[in-house]
């Protein structure tokens, strides 16, 4: 029995490998070549124009300078990590010695307080945007379902949606900052205030695409399927869970993708102003710093922000593939 299972697994594995090689071989050369050509052309154009632009911080950085600064940022990160490790090692030794002398001694474990590296800041940004995005989705999906199910609720909500949707995050931020300072009072805060300010700003701005798309998706569920549900007399909750939700999954995910893209864009601005130690603060600090490398370092951040935005979009797409019942649908 087990050998049989193994055989099946082996043949499965072989089959997938064969499929994979086939896919790679059949890849149209153009599909690889053209994007590379596009990127190379862009880099050349960038390099050529950048050297002609003089700023008060020196020439605008070209691709080479930006690449160099990217490496510097990696080095700085590694150096900071080595320092941190050394610090923890010293601390451990010191504490061990203390305990040796006197087992009852009170030992102190302190956190390393070096400066945040570029990669720490990326991580902070990711945490902040996800926190804001999750809050927004948790509000937008149920509300969108309610709007899609009931014409009355939709009519009541629609003016509010239309008014608040176009508001810039920069207009919300001062209000959110004041409200968070007033409401979130704690001696031992779990979240930094700057983190909450940025996350709530993100949430407020990326609420709308999910809300609107969910409402439209729910309102457009096939009428015959709704009639089936009425004939069966499914209770309201089962109706939403078994009919409405699966039927509107594609639209909900379209909304989520737009929301996360908006959120990521908003986050950088919010972090700049709220001083949340993420990529936005990195850009702001480099700008204030004004060294000859600042513009290159900001450009590194720009590229990283773009790449992460792209990765986040793919992430939602993968999630959609896992959740969606329609495995044949072409997602792009």
């Amino acid at each position: 029995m087990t050998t049989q299972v193994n055989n099946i697994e082996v043949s499965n594995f072989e089959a997938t490998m064969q499929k994979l090689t086939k896919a790679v071989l059949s890849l149209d050369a153009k599909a690889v070549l053209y994007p590379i050509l596009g990127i190379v052309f862009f880099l050349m154009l960038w390099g050529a124009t950048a050297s002609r632009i003089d700023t008060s911080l020196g020439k605008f950085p070209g691709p080479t300078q930006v690449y160099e600064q990217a490496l510097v940022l990696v080095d700085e990160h590694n150096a900071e990590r080595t320092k941190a490790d050394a610090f923890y090692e010293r601390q451990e030794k010191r504490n061990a010695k203390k305990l040796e002398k006197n087992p009852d001694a009170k030992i102190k474990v302190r956190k390393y307080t070096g400066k945040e590296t570029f990669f720490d800041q990326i991580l902070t940004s990711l945490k902040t945007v996800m926190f804001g995005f999750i809050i927004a989705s948790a509000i937008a999906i149920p509300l969108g379902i309610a709007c899609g199910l009931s014409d009355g609720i939709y009519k009541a909500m629609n003016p509010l949606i239309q008014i608040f949707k176009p508001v810039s995050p920069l207009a919300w931020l001062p209000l959110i900052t004041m409200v968070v300072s007033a409401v979130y009072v704690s001696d031992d805060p779990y979240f930094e205030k700057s983190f909450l300010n940025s996350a709530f700003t993100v949430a407020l701005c990326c609420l709308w695409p999910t809300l609107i798309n969910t409402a439209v998706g729910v309102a457009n569920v096939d009428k015959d399927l709704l009639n089936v549900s009425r004939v069966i007399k499914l209770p309201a909750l089962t109706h939403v869970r078994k009919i409405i939700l699966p039927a509107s999954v594609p639209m909900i995910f379209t909304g989520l993708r737009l929301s996360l893209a908006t959120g990521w864009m908003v986050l950088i601005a919010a972090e700049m102003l709220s001083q949340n130690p993420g990529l936005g603060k990195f850009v702001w600090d480099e700008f204030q710093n004004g060294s000859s490398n600042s513009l290159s370092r900001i450009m590194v951040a720009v590229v990283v922000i773009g790449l992460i935005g792209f990765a986040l979009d793919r992430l939602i797409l993968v999630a959609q593939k896992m959740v969606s019942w329609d495995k044949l649908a072409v997602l792009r």
Partner: protein
Amino acid sequence: MNKFLEISQVGIDFPTPNGPFTALKDVNFTIDEGEFISIIGHSGCGKSTVLNIIAGLYQATYGGVILEGKEVNEPGPDRAVVFQSHALMPWLSVYQNVALGVEQVFKGQKTKPEMKEWVEHNLKLVKMDHAIDKMPHEISGGMKQRVGIARCLAMQPKVMLMDEPFGALDALTRANLQDSVMDIQKELNTTIVLITHDVDEAVLMSDKIVMMSNGPAAKVGEIVEIELERPRERVSLSKSDQFNHHRQQVLSFLYEKKGVVDFGEAKQKKLKPTVSENVANEKVS
């Protein structure tokens, strides 16, 4: 004496920008238990509206529907519907689609294993037990409609309402499915209301054909009793004089009497644009 199902003085108005539009008016007919009746009429005459009112999916503006002495005006599994578009949930398997209704209708009456057995029994009845775990997109149109019928039967409806269930199928598949439905009806003695625009189908399958006049304010024109012996067999019936006589009755109503399509009137109605009149006429002729 009270009839099993009574459609009494039913009429319906639809609101339009130019004031209410009366689609049906004074529709009356009755159905006995175990009877198979067809409602036939030109496209857009409101025959589907009649079915939707019986199902409770539409509210009649005038009159009402009485089932076993009680007025019904909301949808329920006792009047289950087979939709033309089969209306299977594409995210549920064949089994789950049927089980969706069973679990709701027999909640507290059947145990889990009993429900499972009942779902499987009904799929067997429509000869779909071989594809129990398939998804709807993996099976053909005729098979989907079989599952739609199984889902309907599994709710043990008092009346089974079929809204042009074979309309979207090719001729051979349609014939197959018609035979299946007749077999099932014989076995279970189900009461069936069938909406159709196919004269042969109506004559072959029904005990009674309700012929509707054209709208607006469509009503029942004539009712023809089909006195053919069951089981009916399509090949031998095609040579039978009685079959052809009934066929002629229906055709003459549709084309020579009140059923004649008045295109001017049909255009005025501005209701849902159903299959274009021409297509429907070809089917009828």
